[in-house]
């Protein structure tokens, strides 16, 4: 450390101070929010029947843990997200590859993909329930509809944007289309694919919750829906808070995964 110049030390100090400020205010915001919410409820300024309170959310959570239903609902939701994430990823990579291999097909399907991607899939909810049935399959199907098209489009666009000179190089060795795909298109698009998966996982969560709100007997979406039907706001807000924590954790994991993959490759 002694080898660093005074200026460098100052710079390091400044970086550290900024980090402390950021962390401090992050916590301050959540503390003010929670304390304010709790006090407003304690002082009867807000009606806990409508807006609940942190202590009620905590006691509801403890109650849900005690009767074992919390982890059951979380498990169901995560299971549905996991299944639809895997299927959507598989479909996305597969269809994008086929479209890349057959440019004419891609041109033919282009307007349909655009329509299907921009259509608000929740509008299909009632149809899905009628066709697939009021079961977990409906939820997974809904989640797939929401995530699959955007995955296909993102990965396919990544494939198209591959540096043309890489392809020319392989063509100068008289490579087959499959070789070009295997040696250039796929490996040069790892980052694109990881990014698509990042979007995919949050899309899947949205889809699953939407599906659970429409039709389900368990899962966090069900918990929220059930809470609103019996007018138990504590339950609704507890569901939302847990959902927020889970989606943050999921994002965190994918983000770490991305860093891990990036490190491995350089």
């Amino acid at each position: 450390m002694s080898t660093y110049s005074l200026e460098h030390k100052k710079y390091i100090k400044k970086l550290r101070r900024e980090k402390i400020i950021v962390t401090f205010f992050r916590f301050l915001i959540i503390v003010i929010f929670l304390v304010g919410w709790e006090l407003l409820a304690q002082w009867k300024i807000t009606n806990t029947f409508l807006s609940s309170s942190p202590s009620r959310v905590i006691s509801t959570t403890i109650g849900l843990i005690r009767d074992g239903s919390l982890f059951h609902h979380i498990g169901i939701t995560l299971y549905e997200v996991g299944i639809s994430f895997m299927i959507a990823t598989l479909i996305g990579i597969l269809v994008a590859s086929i479209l890349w291999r057959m440019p004419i097909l891609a041109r033919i399907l282009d307007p349909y993909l655009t329509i299907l991607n921009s259509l608000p899939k929740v509008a299909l909810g009632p149809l899905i329930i009628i066709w697939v049935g009021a079961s977990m399959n409906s939820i997974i199907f809904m989640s797939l509809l929401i995530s699959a098209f955007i995955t296909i489009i993102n990965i396919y666009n990544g494939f198209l944007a591959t540096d043309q000179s890489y392809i020319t190089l392989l063509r100068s060795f008289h490579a087959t289309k499959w070789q070009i795909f295997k040696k250039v298109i796929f490996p040069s698009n790892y980052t694109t694919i990881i990014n698509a998966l990042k979007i995919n996982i949050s899309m899947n969560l949205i889809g699953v919750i939407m599906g659970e709100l429409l039709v389900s007997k368990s899962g966090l979406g069900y918990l929220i829906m059930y809470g609103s039907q019996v007018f138990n706001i504590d339950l609704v807000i507890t569901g939302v808070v847990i959902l927020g924590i889970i989606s943050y954790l999921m994002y965190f994991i994918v983000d770490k995964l991305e860093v891990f993959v990036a490190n491995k490759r350089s």
Partner: protein
Amino acid sequence: MKNKLLHIKNLSKTYHSKKTEVEAIKDINLDIYDKEFISIVGPSGCGKSTILSILSGLEEKSNGTFSFQKDVTIGYMLQNDSLFFWRNILDNCLIGLEVTGQLTEESKAYVISLLKTYGLGDFMEQYPSSLSGGMRQRVALIRTLALKPDILLLDEPMSALDYQSRLAISDDIYNIIKKEGKTAIMVTHDIAEAISMSDRIVVLSKRPSVVKKIYDIHLTNKSTPIHNRKCKEFSEYYDKIWRDLDVHL
């Protein structure tokens, strides 16, 4: 009698787009002999690179013929190095062998020996991003040499580099090609580079490009490209070719 490796006759190429068709090259006639270094110069956009693309099989010709002597193989070196960022230097050099199904312990050993001979032995495990532009270009040349081609097609191989690296790497590339006993056809827009490296220079006209002139380059005390620039005939050739190119801005 010199050994003729390639015979090009009346080679023509027309490009089609929705609205127009453009005649890029027209009736190109050229013979290439063993161990020759030939440069093709011409005004920008004249279709110089088209000739190489056709010879390497990347593009179809429209008319004419070209024939290689039996068993003559070609290697194509592109304008930019196109090194794969996800492969290390050695694996980058092996890509051609992989694709053509010629990757064996023996061919791999040959590539490693090339890398070692040309000062890249310590970088085999590294990734392209950690190499300088000149070194990357040398890697690209070794990637091409890995397939043991008889004729090298060089498409403005130095154009992406800064001037000083260009001078240095043109010496490098020249020496490697001579040492490995290869024949080379290089496309360039740099007249000085062409004179300093070539045995013959083909000057093309504006589109549709025809062969305007072919110069045999005779330099007193000819050695490496950088030194060749000091030869007394250098500026004469430069003036003549400059006038041939007929540049108007």
